[in-house]
């Protein structure tokens, strides 16, 4: 028995006059659809897939051995026999290029995943648990963050050598607090919402709340950060290889190739430029994807700028 002697009392919700114009698509989008849905993301994806294909499968199409010396004249320009010319040791640049990307891709992938599992897990826990636990986790992150990354990695490599395992662990260690902070920040924004309090009032357990209520809402920023970290990781590892502190000769690594042929820039530029372009293409593709995700994530909060 409701009040108000109005004729439409029984109508659930009166239909608006122009229903078609009222509809605006306000549904939450999945990360995938966000990337696919705009040009930046599309270019990033296409480029990324291309580079992935090149790195993983390119080596099977190499016309020459990647390590054999003197398969061609030294520092020769491009020719039909050697599409990208040869380097100062007579090795075929094209073959080395096809085979040279794996460290630069795989080490960051592994390291970032590790950083997300550990760092992200800790960050989420800290933001949810608050109090002492959060203070401890934040303090640890802060301490790790004050250590300059490249310096830290160089020093550890100086001591522990340049094996792939060391590389993965140190890069993961560098990213751990950064990823942790991002995930913690995203979780904090979610945890203050009343729907989390509603779940707590229902007496749900922490794991259930983190999994059902929190995780779906931090997925998008987490994925965006993941793509971004891969970009940084690629830059990082490529730099280490360039400095001679990662992959070791005679491995056909892009970073090494740039360093090796650096002094012959005027004579055989392609031996340097081709691997440099490879590194650039790989990291640009991931950065485009990361950017597409972050920019479209914040569209709801992108208020208009005052027309000053």
């Amino acid at each position: 028995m409701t009040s108000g002697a109005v004729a439409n009392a029984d109508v659930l919700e009166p239909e608006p006059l122009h229903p078609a114009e009222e509809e605006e698509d306000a549904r939450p989008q999945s990360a995938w659809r966000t990337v696919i849905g705009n040009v930046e993301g599309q270019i990033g994806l296409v480029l990324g897939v291309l580079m992935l294909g090149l790195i993983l499968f390119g080596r099977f199409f190499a016309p020459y051995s990647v390590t054999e010396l003197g398969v061609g004249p030294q520092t020769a320009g491009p020719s039909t026999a050697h599409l990208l010319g040869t380097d100062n040791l007579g090795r075929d640049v094209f073959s080395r290029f096809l085979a040279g990307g794996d460290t630069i891709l795989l080490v960051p992938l592994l390291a970032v995943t590790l950083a997300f599992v550990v760092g992200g897990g800790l960050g989420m826990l800290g933001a949810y648990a608050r109090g002492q636990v959060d203070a401890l986790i934040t303090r640890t992150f802060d301490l790790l963050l004050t250590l300059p990354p490249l310096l830290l990695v160089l020093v550890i490599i100086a001591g522990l050598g340049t094996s792939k395992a060391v590389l993965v662990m140190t890069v993961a260690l560098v990213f751990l607090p950064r990823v942790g902070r991002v995930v913690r920040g995203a979780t904090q924004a979610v945890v203050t919402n009343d729907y989390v309090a509603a779940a707590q009032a229902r007496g749900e357990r922490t794991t259930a709340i983190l999994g059902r209520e929190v995780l779906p809402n931090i997925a998008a920023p987490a994925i965006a950060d993941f793509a971004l970290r891969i970009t940084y990781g690629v830059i990082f590892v490529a730099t280490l290889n360039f400095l001679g502190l990662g992959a070791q000769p005679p491995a056909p690594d892009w970073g090494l190739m740039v360093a090796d042929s650096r002094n012959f820039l005027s004579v055989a530029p392609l031996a340097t430029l081709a691997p440099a372009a490879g590194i650039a293409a790989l990291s640009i593709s991931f950065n485009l994807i990361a950017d597409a995700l972050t920019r479209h994530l914040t569209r709801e909060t992108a208020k208009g700028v005052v027309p000053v």
Partner: protein
Amino acid sequence: MSTNGAPAVLEVTDLTVGYKRGDGRMNEVVWRTSFTLEAGTITGLAGESGCGKSTTALAAIGYRSPGSAILGGTSVLDGVDLLELTTPKLRSIWGSRIAYVAQSASTALNPAITVGRQLAQPLSVHLGLKGTELRARQIELLEAMGLPEPEAALDRYPFQFSGGQQQRVAIAIALSCRPQVLLLDEPTTGLDVTTQARISALLRELVRETGVATLYVSHDLALLGGLADRLAVMYAGEIVEESDAHAVTRTPRHPYTQALIAAVPSVKKPRAVAGIAGRPPSHVVLDACSFAPRCPYVLPACTADHVPLRRLNGSHSARCLRADEIAASPKATTALPIPPVTAPKPLLEVSDVWCEYGTRRSGTKPVVKGVSFEIRPGETVGIVGESGSGKSTLLRAIAGLHPPVDGALVLNGEELARSAVKRPRALRRELQLVFQNPDSSLNPRHTVEDIVGRPIRLFREDVPRTKEKDAVAELLEAVKLPGSLLVRYPAELSGGQKQRIAIARAFAARPSLLLCDEVTSALDVSVQATILELIADLAMQFETAVVFVSHDLAVVRTVATRALVMRNGEVCEEAEIEQLFAAPQHPYTRELLSAIPESIAAA
């Protein structure tokens, strides 16, 4: 608009404003709106969210919000059309001849600049004041606004002042260069009701003394009825009624105004409120009457063509074909159902509960100090208080979200653990919570079915898995929402719809006690009324007791039979509702009651 003989200062004619939508199309949100501001008078512009009142006000002074465009009309000040001017020219007028006070002073005052410097800037830019002359004027202004210790205040930052004081500073800045036109955009919304009353009185004085032509935008019809001289009501981007303020609130001629007045909870009359079903259009409607789908007086003629604004008598106009026929007084409303209280044994006993904020390191502060009360099964009890009274914290403590440091909570004879997760499922089921803000109480990644279904899954043993969806559909019907909403996400729903979902979620567990934390404070008045009706209905239907927390005494009066008044963590007064309103004992209660603007006389 008719005049009181006062000279017209700002004449706005046929103002049309649009916003660019996501897909590039232009959405008109204000259509051919006209009004005149006269010296020394307050013109009220009333309406609910989305009606275009703020947009109208800002556009009238030439400000284009990001994404908006002024599509037509003129706004003339001293013979110059503001809408034709470029920003540099407008800059010389804004702040000096036209002043604007935004809604929330805490965000409109720059947090990183001292109050003194913010006050000084317009004075030096527009009037060229410097040195001692400048300082003297600053102090004079702050004193006129009633701020204590003006010299010291100049060097302080906004965050060091209370909300009311911040708004006084904002008003001081606005009036510093003696403007001809003053725009007030919901200046007291968000302030405590007692502070609101003081600021409103201050504004009235200032307008009289300085003779500034004022436009006061607000959703609070009762406030405007008492404060403004002329009043215009907006709906869907158009003015639907305008007249002297008394006339609009005492003898409304447009069905929307009538319905709006009927939706405002009254402090005078017990328990009468009526909501307006449906929601307003999101843009102007030009081929019919925009209110037609929700109008009790609708005729086929109303949807045939656009309805013009007609003059009814001397100063009263209304945009309705049937304005003459509509009864000149607000329609009678029936009271909300009163739940019968039969059982003698209390359902919930709160005994001497103390709650604190803070940690041992940063210092603790008591927020709830020794509160005790009882609720019987099926009873609705209101808890009223201003911000900082501890009422929300008390509610969260009962819900198990904020463990009290002392005291006991007993439900149905069983003691409740301090933290919800430690309570047995049967007890958790009995207590359900509805939150204030529907935007943050529903998980944006869950569908309506997920949201309402969760408590069913957790608590309703009488519903097997296969029947869960049916149970959800039943609940949606109980809250008067169509079943098609099952697959929607919260972002696709309106504020009122979201709050209904939150209520459905709460009742899904069939609780014996419902805790409502300011559940209507974030909603428009007409929506608020429908929510209040809904809660009253469902509470009666399911025999659920309700604790209703609100800062709004009138709202509490509408739904509750008993009420507690809280202040600074303590209970000042507890009484039956009628008793509380007829003969308040505590001085604070009296202060609260007297602060409520009461200009809407009930039939």
